[in-house]
């Protein structure tokens, strides 16, 4: 159950909006997403933190030698090992 309100992408401005737009472009391209996912929305309360994690996501999940699927296989396995259901 969600106990912490996530940020509505339709009500943000400035840096948060720019990052949410970039997140949606990425998630639409890779997953066919139509809205910004909750894992990014929940970080939108602190723009600099959102920016820091988005920059790491770009560096670690979008650049390199592996395909998106190869990285996602590792990511899914790690999430299961960490008992994370998200």
């Amino acid at each position, binding site marked *: *159950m*969600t*106990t*912490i309100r*996530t940020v509505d992408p339709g009500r943000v401005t400035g840096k948060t909006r720019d990052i949410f737009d970039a997140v949606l472009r990425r998630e639409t391209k*890779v*997953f*066919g*997403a139509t*809205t910004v*996912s*909750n*894992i990014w*929305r*929940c*970080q939108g309360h602190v723009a600099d933190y959102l920016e820091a*994690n988005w920059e*790491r*996501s770009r*560096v*670690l*999940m979008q650049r*390199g*030698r*592996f395909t*998106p*699927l*190869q*990285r*996602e*296989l*590792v*990511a*899914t*396995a*790690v*999430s*299961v*090992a*960490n008992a*994370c*259901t*998200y």
Partner: protein
Amino acid sequence: MAAVKRLGVDEVGVTELMAVTEHARAMSTKAAALLLECLDDEGGLVAAVAGEAGDETVRALLAEVRAVVPPAMGRRDVAALWRILARNPHYLRSTWRKEQVVMRDGALTARDKRRTALGVAMSVRGRYMIEYHAAVLREAGDGEADLLEILGVVDHYTTLNTLSEGMQIESDIVPPA
């Protein structure tokens, strides 16, 4: 899980991925429980069977392991973990057969499975199996950049897993219709 399905992995692929995940986790648990601290460690909680010792069944099984594991890892002898399991031939046989089934080419390639297993070992901080999987990957041609790329995914998902649990968000990543 929904994310890999959206990237085109079907039920067979997902089952293979979960098989690698649980097998890699169980292998790391075994190595840690046996107090094997690094890949060269010979002095575990239970003594490893020496070279040609054991009954005929054990010798035959270890010969099978020896034909596959040292060449795959670029090393001279079978990792001690297998020789410790050889104290119980049934345990060695069932675990070795499972390793072969789980880690071979299927819907997912053996290389991608091994990289995934390394990610799991890193995530549970199992030094023995980190060294084991990394040795196999290096022998297959992976280099420093590849190993660091796997760590990067582990690192980033440690962040995201912690955050999603801590913020108690609901999953909104749905599989394709």
